[in-house]
Each structure stands twice: as structure tokens, then as C-alpha cells.
């Protein structure tokens, strides 16, 4: 049963309402859209009902493919003394987009080129895209859903002595194999 409408607003507040209505909420960008879509598709593929102690719940099997840096458009921004905001890398085109595990502040190893005296101040991984590559069968006849996720990793260091800053950005690809025969 609906509540009776409250007293009508005075004209000046009604005019303010019209002004507010003219503001349009910012649209979701394509990465956010893909991320949210992937979240629901991933939830669809990984039901909560699975017993966490069972072998069937032993997923995801994660294989970090660092070698994919050469295949993808890896951008490296090096700026001692300067802060360089690298332009967003173009995300691969998406087919279906499931599996959204956002890895934030993942400890990343010190890559070549970073001085030892530099202190890492932040590390962030941002999910850019997810591609569902369908069901595969492993050598042990296990059916797995193969999901490939693409991240942009950004790591920042600072030299405490000079206050110079270094920021490295590079793309990372992960391959998930999720058992589907237990579903």
C-alpha cells in the first residue's frame, strides 16, 4: 500500500527540482560496463553452492603470462623528476566478458631499471577486459572454462633522497581455467 503523497513543494523548490533534473549522471565508460558485465557472468559460472573444501572448488588456476607484454601494447612511462600520466592503453575487443576478479595492490616485483634505493609507494592493477574463450578439455579429460583477463598494472616508486618519482605502467594477461564439470 503506497503512502499518501506529501504536501506539494512550493514553487521555488519545484523550480530547483527542475534544475537538478537537468543534470545527467555521468555515463559508465566501456571498461566499467565490461567489468560489471563480467562480474555477473563470472557469478553465473561460479555458483556459491560449491563446497569450498572440495577439489571442484579449487579454482581459479592462475597462470600469469608475463610474456604477453611483447604481444600487447605495453607502455612504459619513465619520469625521474617528472610525473608522466601514460595514456590509457587500448583494450582488446571483447566477446563475452565474464570473470572479473579485480586484483588491487598486488605486490609486484621490482622490474629491471628501478634503482634499488627507490621505495615502492603504490601498486595497482586495473581490470581492462575479460574474454571468454569457451570450454576446453584438459589432458585429464576435465572440462574447463577458459577465461583470459587483461590488466593494466601501474607501480610507483619514489626516491626519498631526491623526491624524484618513477611510474611504470604495463599490461598483464592472466589465464583462468575454471572447472565446469562440477556445476
Amino acid at each position: 500500500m503506497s503512502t499518501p503523497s506529501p504536501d506539494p513543494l512550493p514553487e521555488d523548490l519545484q523550480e530547483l527540482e527542475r534544475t537538478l533534473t537537468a543534470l545527467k549522471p555521468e555515463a559508465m565508460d566501456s571498461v566499467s560496463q565490461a567489468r560489471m558485465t563480467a562480474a555477473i557472468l563470472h557469478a553465473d559460472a561460479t555458483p556459491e553452492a560449491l563446497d569450498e573444501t572440495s577439489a571442484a572448488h579449487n579454482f581459479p588456476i592462475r597462470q600469469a603470462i608475463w610474456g604477453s607484454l611483447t604481444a600487447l601494447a605495453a607502455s612504459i612511462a619513465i619520469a625521474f623528476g617528472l610525473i608522466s600520466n601514460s595514456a590509457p592503453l587500448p583494450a582488446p575487443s571483447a566477446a563475452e566478458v565474464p570473470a572479473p576478479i579485480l586484483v588491487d595492490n598486488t605486490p609486484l616485483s621490482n622490474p629491471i631499471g628501478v634503482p634499488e634505493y627507490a621505495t615502492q609507494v603504490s601498486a595497482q592493477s586495473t581490470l581492462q577486459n575479460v574474454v571468454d574463450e569457451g570450454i576446453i578439455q584438459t589432458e585429464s579429460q576435465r572440462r574447463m572454462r577458459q577465461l583470459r583477463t587483461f590488466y593494466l598494472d601501474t607501480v610507483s616508486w619514489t626516491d626519498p633522497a631526491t623526491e624524484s618519482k618513477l611510474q611504470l605502467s604495463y599490461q598483464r594477461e592472466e589465464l583462468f581455467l575454471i572447472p565446469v564439470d562440477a556445476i
Partner: protein
Amino acid sequence: MLSQPADMDPTEDAAPPSSWRDVLAEHGHRFQLYARQQARNDADAQDILQEALVKAWRASGAKERLEVGFVYTYIRRTAIDWGRSQERRTRREQRSLRDSIWGQSTPTVWFERTLETDERHRQVEAAVQELPPEQQEVLVLKIWADLTFDAIARTLEVSPNTVASRYRYGLQNLKRTLSTLKKA
């Protein structure tokens, strides 16, 4: 473990249920706005929205449907849980440290900015973001999420009269702030 909003009758105020893809396409920007209103920064807002969408989808039956009202309820509940979480507090502190180092602490943009957006609109947006949180969230849900007072009351778990009061006080506060800016 949060309970499903069982007392919600999503069909009472909302349009007939659509597929979750259609709901996301049509309402995603509104969900995003409410998540930004509930969160401290856009990164938290995106995380909260992701978690809330999955929970709302499961509560809607975990198939094709996604009830709009459930999404708003779970955004709010998830944001409350996030506020209590120590782990996320640490993450926010790290983000704040990064922002302070890079000097890039900028407020989250809630509304579209176009060349035609006049100074008045920017002032209105700034004034909305300065409202007390309880008035702010009612305005967001009423004006931009286009929910009824009854639906907002179910989302916030308060009475419809309380919602109506917060709405009126929120508009009055906004009017006062904008009048002050106009005189300045």
C-alpha cells in the same frame, strides 16, 4: 551474511523486469551515481557497485533478471560494510597516499560535463555534494534514480515520511546554498 530484501516488492514501483543486460544498460549510470554518493572515491564506488550488482543478481534469482530496487539496496548495504572493513580502510589510505604524492586528489565527477554545461550547473553539483549524506542520498535516489518515496524508504529502511522530510530539507538547504553563491 546480508539477508535478501524480502520485503521489497520490486514490481510495485518499477517497470516490468528486464534482462540484467538491459537493466545495466538503462540504469548503469544511475547505479554508478548512487555508488559514488555512497563511497569516498570513484575506485571504491566501482568496487562497491560490482559487489552490489552480483548480490542483487543472485537475490533476483541468479538467472536473467535483475531487480532495479535490489541493486540500490545492495549498493547501500555494501557501502556500509565497506566503511567498516579494516582491509578496505587500509586500501583507501594507500590511495590517499598516492593521491597526495601525485597531487592528484580530485573530487569525483557525478554529472556529465559538456561545453554547454554552464557555471550554474557546476555550482549546483558542488552544492549537492556538500549536503549532509542522509539528505544527499534521498535526493540522488529521488531525482536521478527516479525512485518513489516508498521505494526509497525500503532501500534506506526508514519510513516514507522520513524520506519526504529529508528530501524537503535537502532541497531547502540546496536553495539556501545556491542563493548564497548567487549573491557572492
